[in-house]
């Protein structure tokens, strides 16, 4: 066990949280945002769909899937940057199975 500088630990958490806030802003805009503006947005069409319908049926879902994969990938990159070893994580968490 070695101690990590407080600043380093804080910046790990900050980076993760900042990314999460960005994901949630996008998440909000493509779902709630489009619903709130459904009437004006229905003037545009995309691939034959009125825009609000396209977002509800396809656009939002595809954005959600992309956000989750971006999060998984960037999450791994942040872990690597801070020297986290997934193999160690696995050992630690299998050792942490509670005794009951």
């Amino acid at each position, binding site marked *: 066990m070695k101690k990590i500088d407080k600043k*380093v630990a804080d910046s790990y*958490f900050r980076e993760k949280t900042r990314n999460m806030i960005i994901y949630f802003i996008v998440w909000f805009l493509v779902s709630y945002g489009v619903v709130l503006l459904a009437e004006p947005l229905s003037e545009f069409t995309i691939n034959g769909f009125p825009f609000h*319908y396209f977002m509800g*049926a396809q656009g*939002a879902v595809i954005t959600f899937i992309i956000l989750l994969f971006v999060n998984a990938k960037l999450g791994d990159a942040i872990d690597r940057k801070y020297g986290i070893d997934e193999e*160690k994580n696995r050992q*630690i968490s299998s*050792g942490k199975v509670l005794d009951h």
Partner: protein
Amino acid sequence: MDTQFLVSLSIILATFALYIGIAIYNKAKATSDFYVAGRGVPPIFNGMAIGADWMSAASFIGMAGTIMLLGYDGLAYIMGWTGGYLLLTFLLAPQLRKYGRYTVPDFIGDRFDSHTARVIAAICTIIISFTYSIGQLSGSGVVIGRLFEIDAKVGTMIGVVLIAFYAAFGGMKGITWTQVAQYIILIIAYLIPVIFMSLQLTGNPMPWISYGELVGKMGELDRELGISEYFAPFTNGTKWQFLALMFTLMAGTAGLPHVIVRFYTVSTMKAARWSGAWALLFIGLLYLSAPAYSAFSRFILMTKVAGSKITELPAWTKTWVDTGKLQVADGNGDGVLQWSELIISNDIVVMATPEIANLGMFVIGLVAAGAMAAALSTAGGLMIAISSSFAHDIYYRVLKPNATEKKRLSVARWSIVLATLFAGLIALNPPGAITQIVAWAFALATGTFFPALVLGVWWKRSNSKGVIAGLLVGLGVTLAYIFAAKYGGFTILGIIDTGAGVFGAIAAFTANIVVSLMTPAPSQKIQDEVMDLRYPEQMVYKNGDVWMNDDGPKSV
């Protein structure tokens, strides 16, 4: 006995044999395996299992029909049931995995160091999962009943026996691999008819791209008929109801115990992140196809069925009219069936469309097998959630801490059998439509677990009194709003019973925060444990400092 019956029966029996075979092969031996599959399921397969767990009879049988009838307003289900995975994967799943408990009530009981909170959480789990499973069992009853032309009640009983069998003897491990198989069957069964219809109607084998132009065309047809356009927003409810329903479905997703427990089956926080991403990809395949399914079904009904002579209707109409789910009355007596004279229940759209589009016996049988996979897989996961709440959280952690592992396993199995039988009994005369029951389960999860878990993971100051107040107030407000909106006609901003979770969640967050602040903070140890959830497994938070663990489990 006609050929269709034999074809459908063989397909269903073959898929059942596969599921049961996998369950027997993986027959669980130890309790740890029974609940969480030994924690070693790779993310991509765990993603498929989450998908099968997640997509129930409501998604498979009910959703496309709901969208067909509600038009744009039905899309709240599409966005709600997919967007919730972001709340789950960002805010809860990896953190709960690091905390490392078997069940959701276990987390709540240990995080807040309170047996009262544990028991309330276990009871909430049982209420939510039980409500949900009634819908699944009656869904499987409808499919079996319709298919074999027997009473839906007998069909429900067949479903009960199957679920009790493999949930009780396979445990989660059996279920994980069974659910992987079920996901594959159900997604094939859903995509084949959509792709065939797309080829039939547009000549393009990619339904996701081709149905846009049909949506536009149907708008023109609707204008000619003088009804509101298929894609026009908020024709079946207010904008606030749309938003409230969408929020309820999203937050409910993140609070459903049988979905969360899936994330305990992965090895690490990283694996939890990837499981969430794979799960939504696999779920998204069906959810992106459902609106296409609706559009094709509606287009076929509008152009091929409506407008035909009432005496020359195709053969499929008769069987479905007999079920009482389809009405084709010639109201104005001109001998022609108009669009307005065709009344179709949203529960039969997915099942009937392959017949309407004349896709052949194999496809019809496959759709029935897929619907059964959807109903059974979800019911299996729900039963595990119920049995672990009872056998683990109430029996072992509170009532009999000295019970042997063998005894606990037998209590878990018996609680599955009893819960399945009891849910089956209620499903014989369900208290509402399937989609309605499922929506209530989501509203209850939004009003109880979503606030309790989010505050439990992200706010170290939240304490046992706060969480108890939050759970009880959230449960009470959600239930009260459902009943007031459904039976009393009471609504706020046009939000009806299916959007009740919004009010439950607001009340629960408020109660949890206010009561927590008015009572003493949790112990330093608990606050440290909550801070620890911010970091990956290898980083450990202790007394205000973060430590890097390079020596493996021994030094923890």
